């Protein structure tokens, strides 16, 4: 059964349609990453589900229709990029906030807070002043606070956005693990696909307030429906016809036999253990006049190389789009 | 910090050294905020004497006199105008003034001369009187101060707290002058039983008077003899004019004096003389709406048209006022709060 069911959700602010008929399903205990360029309505989708902006459409959480409920009755958890920790409360009181609201006794709340802080790796920091926390610590407190009342749905809006790369990777893994073990259903807004891949089972891509893709990371990557999606996901070789995976292009020495095309190296960069080449071809190949390829060998700009292209690997876009 | 202090002290010493014993040709007239004369009045004085006058005001008459007493011997100005007979004794006791026998004093009737040593010179006189609107009293107008305690004027009379209002104080004095030390409390008990209203000041009282602005429902108010003049001159076309209950009128005489401690007593004296001169005296009625004390001064016809003559105003000797005012107001307060 589905945990969250959103149908035809629209948000209009000052004659401006921010969300246009968004529908989505979130399975029990699954995590969906919401991706999209800035201004595509990612945060608004979260804010509409949370009840911060008025929206039309259906929002069903579990077996409850929550569209007309005020935020505090929706039973959701929220995490912001800015953490939004309550500055006047210490770590423990921040985490206990939602528990107190749901009527848990002080004693029970204290136990649960200690347990949660232990889980997020902040045991012993209960009495700390939130202003003294590092970015990573603040993020963990925010997570513990959001999870404490065991929300039916957790929504995270760029939760790791303010952290540095290394910490982000580390926390993303921790977060994924925590969401999995606690069986929490979550919507995860991010602009970072790697992070999305680590945390989420499924991706949802928004463009101009509309859902343009929904599926597993692999599905969307291998078979993007439109050129826009392919480019948004970071495919290098995208033409009007379709998308050619990087692995479909092999680079050989221009003197070696078997080359289908001879190309000129425009730029070469050493990234993630191999050379990434930007190549110019004299005649377009599968509609591409520039091709990106990977190579273990170094070729300097201006060098001529031979290319072997597996044309069968081309994924053609659905002509209906 | 220290250097700044040294500099300040040096400047102060320099300023002190500069002030010689010569009389200054710049005279400061210290007065209350209601003081006004026609434009050009002091230019004429300057043309006549070569002395320029700066007019400086400081609150109402009460604040002015209190400030003068507080700065006695080191005054803010050279001449003070605006002490009245209600405040006079305190100012004299506070050594505010020095003697100056003004030119023109002979033309002033003796009843205005309240200081035998001539430390102050009378300049103008007005009257605090009960005003009423006969048409709003069902045709039965009060004919004397005694009528105010009659049942037909129940809840019609409004006056002011003598602790916070000069006309209020004058009316209290009027009752003391009329009924004497032994009788005024009974009179006030009757007023209270008859529903007298007391406000803190003139403006609030006038606001509750039928002839006031915005106007209330009280038909009788303690105000000034000049109130009908204001109503006549500033009331637009067909103004409604209040009547005056003349036997309630308490004289209010305003004085000027040379301030004790001035560097220029002679020039200051010239200014006092000028204030008593027939020209300035004739200018007083239409600016401050009180009567000149100099019998040689001509009262403008516009003023005379609406002014009600007060032939036998009430008064109390300033010494009695100074000696008893605190006790009287205290007794009055206790009586009304009984």
């Amino acid at each position, binding site marked *: 059964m589905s945990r969250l069911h959103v149908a035809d959700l629209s948000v209009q602010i000052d004659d401006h349609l921010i969300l246009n008929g968004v529908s989505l399903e979130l399975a029990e205990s699954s995590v969906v990453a919401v991706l999209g360029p800035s201004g595509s309505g990612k945060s608004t989708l979260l804010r509409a589900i*949370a*009840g*911060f902006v*008025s929206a039309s459409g259906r929002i069903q959480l579990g077996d409850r229709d929550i569209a007309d409920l005020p*935020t*505090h009755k*929706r039973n959701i958890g*929220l995490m*912001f990029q*800015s953490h*939004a920790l*309550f*500055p*006047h409360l210490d770590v423990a009181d921040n985490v206990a*906030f939602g528990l107190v609201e*749901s009527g848990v006794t002080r004693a029970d709340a204290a136990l649960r807070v200690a347990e949660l802080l232990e889980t997020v790796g902040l045991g012993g920091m209960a009495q700390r002043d939130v202003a003294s926390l590092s970015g990573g610590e603040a993020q963990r407190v925010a997570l513990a*606070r959001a999870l404490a*009342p065991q*929300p039916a749905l957790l929504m995270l809006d760029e939760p790791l956005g303010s952290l540095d790369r290394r910490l982000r990777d580390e926390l993303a893994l921790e977060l994924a693990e925590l969401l999995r073990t606690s069986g929490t259903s979550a919507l995860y807004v991010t602009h970072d696909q790697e992070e999305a891949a680590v945390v989420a089972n499924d991706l949802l891509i928004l463009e101009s307030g509309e859902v343009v893709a929904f599926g597993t990371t692999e599905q969307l990557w291998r078979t993007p429906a439109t050129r826009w999606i392919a480019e948004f996901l970071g495919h290098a070789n995208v033409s009007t016809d379709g998308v050619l995976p990087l692995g479909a292009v092999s680079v050989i020495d221009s003197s070696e036999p078997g080359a289908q095309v001879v190309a000129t190296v425009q730029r070469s960069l050493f990234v993630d253990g191999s050379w990434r080449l930007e190549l110019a071809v004299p005649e377009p190949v599968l509609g591409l006049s520039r091709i990106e390829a990977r190579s273990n060998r170094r070729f300097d700009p201006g060098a001529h190389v031979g290319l072997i292209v597996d044309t069968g690997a081309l994924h053609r876009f659905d002509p209906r789009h | *910090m220290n250097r700044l202090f040294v500099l300040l002290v040096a*400047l102060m010493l320099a300023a002190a050294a500069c002030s010689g014993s010569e009389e200054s040709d710049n005279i400061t007239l210290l007065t209350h905020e*209601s003081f*006004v004369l026609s*434009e050009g009045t002091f230019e004429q004085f300057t043309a006549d004497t070569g002395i320029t006058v*700066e*007019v*400086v*005001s*400081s609150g109402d008459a*009460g*604040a002015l*006199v*209190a*400030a003068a007493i*507080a700065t006695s011997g*080191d005054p803010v100005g050279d001449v003070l105008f605006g002490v009245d007979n209600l405040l006079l004794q305190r100012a004299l006791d506070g050594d505010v003034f020095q003697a100056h026998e003004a030119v023109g004093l002979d033309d002033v009737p003796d009843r205005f001369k309240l200081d035998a040593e001539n430390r102050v010179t009378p300049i103008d006189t007005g009257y605090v009187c009960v005003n009423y609107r006969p048409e709003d009293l069902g045709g039965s107008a009060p004919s004397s101060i005694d009528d105010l305690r009659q049942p037909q004027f129940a809840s019609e009379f409004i006056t002011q*707290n003598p*602790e*916070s209002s000069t006309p209020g104080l004058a009316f209290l004095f009027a009752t003391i002058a009329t009924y004497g030390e032994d009788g005024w409390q009974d009179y006030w008990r009757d007023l209270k039983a008859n529903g007298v*209203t*007391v*406000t803190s*000041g*003139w*403006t*609030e009282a006038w*606001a509750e008077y039928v002839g006031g*602005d915005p106007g209330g429902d009280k038909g009788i108010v303690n*105000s000034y003899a000049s*109130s009908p003049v*204001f109503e006549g*001159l*500033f*009331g*637009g076309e067909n103004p409604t004019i209040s009547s005056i209950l003349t036997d309630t009128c308490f004289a209010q005489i305003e004085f000027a004096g040379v301030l004790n401690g001035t560097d220029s007593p002679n020039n200051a004296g010239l200014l006092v003389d000028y204030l008593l001169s027939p020209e300035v005296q004739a200018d007083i009625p239409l*600016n401050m*709406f009180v009567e000149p004390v100099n019998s040689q001064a001509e009262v403008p016809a516009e003023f005379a048209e609406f002014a009600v003559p007060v032939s036998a105003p009430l008064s109390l000797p300033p010494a009695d006022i100074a000696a008893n005012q605190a006790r009287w107001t205290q007794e009055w*307060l206790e009586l*009304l*709060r009984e």
Partner: protein
Amino acid sequence: MGPVGDWIARGLLAFLGLTVAYPIVAMLRRFGSEPINVSVGSVLDLVGFTVVQAVLSTVLTVLMALPLCWVIATYRFRFRAAVMGAVLVPFVLPTVVVAVSVRNLLSQFGLVVDGIDGSLVAILLAHVIFNVSVVVRLVGGYWAALDPRLDEAAAALGAGPIRRFRRITLPLLRSALLAAAAIVFLFTFTSFGVIVILGGLGRATVETEIYRYAITRNDFGSAAALAVVQAIAVAGMAVMNQRLQRRLRAASATATRQMQPVGWRQRARVSVISGATVAFLLAPFLALLVRSLTVQGSLGLDHFTALTDRPNILPVSPLRSLANSVLFASLAGGLAALVGTLAALVAASRSRLSRLVETAVLIPLGISAVTLGFGYLVGFTFFELRRSPILVVVAHAIIGIPFVVGAVLPAVRALDRSVLEVGSVLGANSVAVTRRVLLPLLRPAIASGAGFAAAVSLGEFGASGFLARGRSSYTAPQAIFGLIGQPGASLQGQAAALCVVLGCVIVALVVSIDRLRGTSGGGWL
């Protein structure tokens, strides 16, 4: 702040010492040896009632102001700046006008305010009308800068609107609320006209008694004794306020995000709350507006056009008095803005003198106008300073300074220090960082405080009434008093017209300050 901060702190303390402490000392030196005719018991009673009415007034004012604070903090709407200006209007109206209006208002609800017995309710109501603006401007501005996500996070955690207000908003507003409450408390602690007019016979506060002893009785010994009691009480409260403030942590300010009201429900909320509050505060003003347009029973502008001519009873034309008032307000507002901003910077710094400065700036608000006025008269006997308009500007400015500090200090404390550090890393020296980074960031708060200080001056609060001043500096409030002090429909009409113009001047001032800031959305007010 290093040594520069210490020097600024010393300068500020010297300024306050000269303008506040010195006059009090001078008054004591002059009158300290005179007999004192007040008993300890009566002083205790007096202080008791003074404190009780001030506390009640402060609590009611805060309660009355909070809904409008919320609207100001939450929504962006067309008349927002005008509403912020309108709440200041009662501030510049003569006390007697507001008091008469309160009495009329109460009598419509069947409560007759008797001149003999007076009414505590009427006193409190008038105090609320005068002081709502303090809370709306100081707290509303601060509230607007709170991070809305804190509220959202609390909502998501299951807290309803009332719980969120109690558990999140209120604690976060404590610092600003305390700053505003301290000002309202001191303002009502030293309230004079309202007590005298609406209090009835014999109802007195320390302030009215100082006036009575000094002015009505010329018993300066007793007045000086009461002035000392008042100064000690006020200093004690300023210290207490400063201690409390230190314990509170300022919530960091963010880029604000007021939203346009959406849907009829939000629109109704905004209109009802701002409309009702403004209507309540402006009831006296509306009566004046009607009066000013009524000429001989019909509608007309005669009273306004008459403002250009000098009526016999005034030394200058009402228009000229208005120009004087605006000039004084600009000077006093500017001086208060300068001193207040420096004081706020020092108070927020780690200078050794910061606590002293933070405590000292509040004190002028609580010192009797009589004390300061007479202190100036007997203290500043050099340079003919006593009749210099400079003293009037100073007397206005020192009452305005606490408002500037109240607006600027929370803004300084909420500043992200790193912004300033970035500025100095980029090679700017401290003067340049102050000019190019700090001041632009604080400008809205400074402007808000300066607007208030200007209103204080336009309303002629403080000691200036007792100072000797030349006819050329005759101000609008003086002219209004002159005009309403006599019968005559046209004089009363002109007084009303002048009040209306004065009210419009303060609204225009506030709206144009708002424009100057170029913020459509608000931020610090």
